[in-house]
């Protein structure tokens, strides 16, 4: 944002050498155009939500979510996503930090590996996961020895969600850690901190807004994961699967209540994370004084 400020001011004052009047008109024109474009994008993005609200009736919600066990898919999705996120944070955070500090050999290759699941169609990931952790795979055999089956189990659901969501967290955390000046970490260690203390007192609070945003995005992806999930974990039925099945069996009106449930369950965390990180960033940037 800050980088664009001078250019914006230039346009607003209409400084086009030689043609001050023409410059002012052009500047005003481009501002109107930009505002119009922004509005269109914003409306287009919000459109589906409007439709969702418009087409829901209290009756259909009660009919779909009322029966006993109807909320089962919600608990399954919440549980699997929470575990997938926990694993992501536990292993993804150190990975992102080491990448950001350039302490990994072949960092580019590692980064590419993290991004690969993002570039692959989720359905294909699902198929490949069957080979990887399914009963006929080598890893699957090992998993079977500890009574973990990689197909149509809660474990498989977690793995599938992890594949769809983890890159968002690791890449977000990578960016967050990169934004922290390594020199101030050095300052903290010279002032007597152990490396882990410096991480806890300096790096983590400064990277927290970015980490929260990455985590929130990953959470939304995990909750909504479908492509890989429907291949390797048709059961146990999470919310996205439930939406798909209800849609096939009862049509739009049967699927929409579950869609609402998914949105209501998945969205608050990202929105809170966004608001919190925006406030924290503003405070550190000095926009808000104590």
């Amino acid at each position, binding site marked *: 944002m800050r980088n664009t400020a001078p250019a914006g001011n230039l346009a607003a004052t209409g400084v086009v050498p030689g043609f001050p009047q023409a410059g002012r008109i052009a500047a005003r024109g481009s501002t109107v155009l930009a505002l119009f474009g922004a509005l269109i994008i914003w409306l287009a993005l919000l459109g589906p939500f409007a439709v969702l609200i418009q087409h829901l009736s209290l009756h259909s919600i009660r009919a779909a979510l009322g029966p006993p066990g109807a909320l089962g898919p919600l608990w399954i999705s919440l549980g699997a996503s929470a575990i997938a996120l926990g694993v992501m944070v536990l292993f993804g955070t150190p990975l992102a930090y080491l990448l950001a500090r350039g302490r990994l050999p072949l960092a580019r290759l590692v980064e590419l590996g993290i991004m690969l699941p993002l570039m692959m169609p989720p359905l294909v990931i699902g198929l490949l996961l069957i080979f990887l952790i399914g009963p006929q795979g080598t890893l699957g055999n090992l998993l079977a020895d500890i009574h973990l089956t990689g197909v149509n189990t809660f474990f498989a659901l977690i793995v599938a969600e992890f594949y769809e969501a983890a890159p968002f967290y690791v890449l977000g955390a990578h960016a967050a850690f990169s934004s922290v*000046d390594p*020199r*101030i970490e*050095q*300052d*903290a*260690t*010279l*002032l*007597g*901190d*152990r490396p882990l203390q410096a991480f806890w*007192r*300096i790096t983590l*609070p*400064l990277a927290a807004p970015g980490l929260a945003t990455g985590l929130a995005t990953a959470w939304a992806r995990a909750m909504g994961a479908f492509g890989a999930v429907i291949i390797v974990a048709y059961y146990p039925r999470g919310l996205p699967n439930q939406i798909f099945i209800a849609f096939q069996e009862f049509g739009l009106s049967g699927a929409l209540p579950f869609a609402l449930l998914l949105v209501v369950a998945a969205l608050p965390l990202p929105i809170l994370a966004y608001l919190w990180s925006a406030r924290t960033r503003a*405070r*550190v*940037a*000095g926009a808000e*004084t*104590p």
Partner: protein
Amino acid sequence: MSPKAPPLLEVDIEVKRRQVVVEASFALDAGERLAIFGTSGAGKTTILESVAGLTRLSRGKVRVENKLVAGRVKGEATMAPRHRQVALVRQPTTLFPHLTAEQNVAYAIRHSPAGTRVDELLERLGLSSLARARGAALSGGQRQRVALGRALAGPFRVLLLDEPLSAVDIAAREPLRLLTIETSLARDAAGILVTHDLAEAQAFSDRLGIIDGGQLLQVGGALEVVLSPATRRVAELVGYAGFVPHPARPGCWYAIHPDRLVHATVPERGVVLEGTVLSTRPFGLRYECTVTTRSGEQFTVHLDTPPPGGTEASFTAIDPPLVGA
């Protein structure tokens, strides 16, 4: 005679940078302070970062209390940063941006010697009213005060200062300088200040080092280096603004300092120079004149009452040092 104890800080380093190879070798005892003066890009910051153990050395080592801080010595590991007892004030200032001024200064208090008082320090730094402000709300000079306070409140035996007062108003520097020297003496520490301000360098320390192109050219007393520069380059750096060849010794010059000239002919006090006054301009409370000698050398002189431009005049350089190339 008992064997002399090793100095508190021993530095003997070579660091390869893209532009220059930085080489320095010196030692400081407890309570000693060294100011390193040089132009920007001369390698001043590199020396500080090397002493703090933050730069990879291409050769040499740094020891604090006879323990290895930087460099490779067989069978001896370098100390972890937290054990080095080195405080570093960087340029540009690096504060912890999410913490207030007070929290920055108090950051290392848990590792500091008992009796370190943050409130007292904030007051002496002139930061009492800004204790709860964060870095982004502070001016450049205020940020430098916070950074200085953070270093002084921390645990250290070696204090490294990279232009710590450059953004502080000149009138406000003296109390901060005193605070720095006092604290460093109280901790029985060694101090290194790097600056491109000669007056600042001399005010901070009793020893002065001149660095140029990565080389520490001369180290000596704060006044001694200026009075008797070892080479023509050192003389240029410390303010000599004219060089007149020695009549009998080729390759040797009298170094002429603008403040060590009188507008009179006094051969028994130094070297008499005659020439034409080229130009005159105000210089603080005095005037600065540029003069050309008959043989074509130029020098500048600071005078209370300058001769008019274009006139012939005679000056005496008081005991000018003789410098080689």
